């Protein structure tokens, strides 16, 4: 039972009792002890006095050696009950007379030394030795021995009283303390009670009743203050909570609203997407549906023309030609309308690729020669130095130029049409400027305003006279815009017009990210059957530095680069990874680069992958005859490599690199695709 854990009541009572008991004990003890000591002192004195008296009275007897008298004198001590022995000793220590009541033997002989007056407590007895003198002369020694019974009695009595007293007062103290401790404990217990109630019921309105002005009272006050504060906080908290709830509800409502809105938006989005899909489908369908019968018309009329020619019916030929013309015109109208619809629907996309400009120009001019000669016009072409390749949507560029040149041909009679192409730098960018000038009828300012607007040919009479749909320029304009370029016109009615098209050398479509320079090698994707990995290029080179350089520059082009220093491994990797192109160093450690090339080209799975030979030896003809798509001499011209890579990436070169002649022819053919007027 730990003292600490006793109740306040017990503690207080304990304290009180202990204190009072100790005080009592100490005081009474000291008092008693003092008393007993005094008493003893008294007794001592008494006995000494007795001894003196007896001594005095027996001095004469001692002097006269009157033993009976001495004995009688001693016998007078009978009256004193506490004297257990009285002995008169002669000066030489012999017993002269004695008084020993009861059966007790005379005390032992006084030690010879002790002849003096003195006292001692020994063996429970009090001995007083008195020097018996007669008139100053030592005649003997008196020993009085007392059992101090009075003192013992007294002491015993005291002890009893003491205990009774202590006990009684203890009880009293108990009683009193138990009553008085309430003064302290009651308020504490009250407080404890209050606290308990408060915390059990979480009711902070309760206050402790405080009628005390002392520390406990202050404690209670403090407690009450605390409660008040807690109450306040509680209330504040509740308020805050309420507010929070309200706010949360608000927010929830808002969220619900937003969610609803979101759902609606989503629905709208879906609807829009649906609409868009529908539009695309429609356009695609329309495109297909409209073209198909027209193609039939045109095709059959062509065919009929051929057959008619063979059969020699020249009349029908003209009619058939008319049908053809009308059909072609209709087709071009449909194409224009469809194009515009596509543009309007936002479905017109850019297909960017790197292509050579001069050949394209040549091809366009060639295609439009007939149109020019129709009106006795002459086309002059001038392509400036430095116009090489550009990155743009070739089809659209072609369409724009064809549109402009054919317009020039249409609106010029016996004149000159000049096509000028040159590179310029403006606003920190590289552009290619295409200029189409004619010496035709020109454009009035009023006409100019409406020039690029659809459905507004300069004059309805013009469409009748000159043909055309009126949509061509609008479409060209849009195309130019899409490629971040623009078309401008300068004209003087009657003198001629000059249309200028500015296109960036490198067209970037919206949202296209510039090739990141941090392309890392992706883990090998399982090759699709027959497909090549679009963005992976295989570098076979035994020189580590070379490999590193290649890797870095190719990474910059946004390619995944696989490196190997061995021809065998290269072949293996080519099989596995199907890169879209391979660079192959001639000098390889394990196998001759030529043999590697040979193997690559004779493997039907790999033969389609263009191989760029890299070597320090200039042996182009051998390389090409061996089947290399291209041949670069080290140290590499990085730009050249980049251009080549881009080419292969776009798959521009024909599939079979062996057929170099057909390569060019194929290119030519493809450029002559007459889909747009």
């Amino acid at each position, binding site marked *: 039972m730990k003292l600490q854990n006793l109740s306040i009541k017990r503690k207080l009572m304990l304290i009180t009792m202990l204190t009072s008991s100790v005080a009592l004990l100490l005081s009474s003890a000291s008092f008693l002890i003092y008393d007993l000591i005094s008493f003893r002192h008294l007794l001592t004195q008494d006995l000494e006095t007795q001894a003196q008296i007896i001594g005095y009275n027996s001095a004469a007897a001692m002097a006269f050696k009157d033993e009976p008298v001495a004995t009688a004198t001693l016998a007078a001590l009978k009256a004193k009950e506490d004297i257990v022995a009285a002995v008169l000793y002669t000066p030489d220590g012999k017993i002269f007379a004695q008084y020993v009541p009861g059966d007790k033997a005379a005390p032992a002989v006084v030690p010879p030394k002790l002849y003096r007056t003195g006292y001692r407590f020994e063996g429970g007895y009090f001995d007083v030795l008195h020097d018996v003198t007669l008139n100053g002369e030592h005649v003997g020694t008196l020993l009085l021995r007392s059992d101090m019974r009075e003192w013992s009695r007294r002491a015993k009595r005291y002890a009893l009283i003491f205990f009774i007293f202590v006990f009684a007062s203890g009880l009293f103290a108990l009683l009193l303390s138990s009553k008085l401790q309430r003064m302290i404990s009651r308020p504490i217990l009250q407080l404890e009670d209050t606290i308990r109630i408060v915390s059990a019921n979480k009711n902070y309105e309760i206050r402790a009743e405080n009628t005390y002005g002392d520390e406990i009272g202050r404690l209670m006050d403090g407690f009450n203050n605390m409660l008040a504060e807690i109450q306040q906080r509680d209330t504040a908290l509740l308020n805050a909570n309420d507010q929070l709830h309200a706010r949360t509800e608000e927010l929830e409502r808002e969220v619900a609203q937003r969610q609803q809105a979101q759902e609606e938006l989503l629905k709208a989005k879906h609807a829009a997407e649906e609409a868009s899909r529908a539009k695309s489908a429609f356009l695609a369908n329309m495109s297909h549906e409209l073209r198909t019968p027209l193609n*039939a018309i045109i095709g059959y009329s062509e065919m009929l023309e*051929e057959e008619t020619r*063979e059969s020699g019916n020249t009349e029908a030929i003209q009619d058939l030609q008319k049908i053809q013309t009308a059909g072609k015109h209709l087709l071009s109208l449909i194409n224009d309308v469809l194009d515009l619809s596509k543009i309007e629907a936002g479905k017109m996309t850019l297909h960017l690729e790197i292509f050579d400009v001069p050949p394209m120009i040549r091809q366009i001019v060639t295609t439009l020669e007939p149109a020019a000669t129709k009106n006795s016009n002459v086309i002059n072409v001038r392509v400036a130095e430095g116009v090489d390749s550009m990155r743009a949507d070739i089809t659209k560029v072609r369409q724009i130029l064809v549109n402009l040149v054919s317009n020039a041909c249409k609106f010029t009679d016996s004149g000159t049409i000049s096509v000028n192409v040159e590179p310029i730098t403006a606003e920190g960018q590289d552009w290619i400027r295409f200029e189409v000038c004619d010496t035709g009828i020109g454009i009035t300012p009023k006409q100019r305003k409406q020039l690029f607007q659809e459905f507004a040919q300069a004059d309805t009479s013009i469409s009748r006279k000159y043909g055309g749909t009126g949509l061509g320029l609008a479409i060209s304009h849009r195309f130019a815009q899409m490629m971040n370029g623009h078309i401008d016109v300068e004209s003087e009615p009657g003198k001629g017009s000059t249309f200028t098209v500015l296109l960036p050398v490198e067209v970037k479509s919206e949202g296209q990210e510039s090739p990141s320079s941090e392309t890392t090698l992706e883990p090998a994707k399982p090759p699709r059957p*027959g497909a*090549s990995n679009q963005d992976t290029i295989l570098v076979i080179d035994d020189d580590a530095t070379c490999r590193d350089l290649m890797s870095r520059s190719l990474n910059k082009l946004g390619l995944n680069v696989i490196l190997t220093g061995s021809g065998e491994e290269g072949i293996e990797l080519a099989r596995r990874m199907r890169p879209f192109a391979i660079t192959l160093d001639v000098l390889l450690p394990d196998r001759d680069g030529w043999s590697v090339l040979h193997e690559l080209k004779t493997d039907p799975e790999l033969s389609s992958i263009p191989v760029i030979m890299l070597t320090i030896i200039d042996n182009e003809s051998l390389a090409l005859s061996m089947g290399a798509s291209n041949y670069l001499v080290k140290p590499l011209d990085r730009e050249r490599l980049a251009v080549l890579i881009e080419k292969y990436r776009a798959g521009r070169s024909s599939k079979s690199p062996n057929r170099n002649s057909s390569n060019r022819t*194929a290119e030519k053919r493809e450029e002559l695709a007459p*889909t747009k007027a």
Partner: protein
Amino acid sequence: MPKILLVEDNEMNRDMLSRRLQRKGYAVVMAHDGEQGLEFARSESPDLILMDISLPKMDGWQVTRFLKSNPETKGIPVIALTAHALSTDRQKAFEIGCDDYDTKPVEFGRLSEKIEHLLVEKSVS
């Protein structure tokens, strides 16, 4: 006389093309869908295949792939006829294994040049 297998689902196109080809002096076998195309490729052993891409059920790409993976037929040159002239289509054509491609509507002159070229090559190799 070289035999050309024409795989085209559109009747008019088929008609036009086959007549012109015949006049050019080619023997023409016609298939109107991919399945038939595969069958005829095997059974007729044509010298060249004109493959329309937009075929119902199995499109021209698939058919070409089959043809090119089959040792019996992979030697036959294939010209893909596609309505699109996008670079991606060109790329795809080569990926699949087409020997050449052309756009529709067909410009007969251009197409026959391509046919001639491939036939010459085939005879050489």
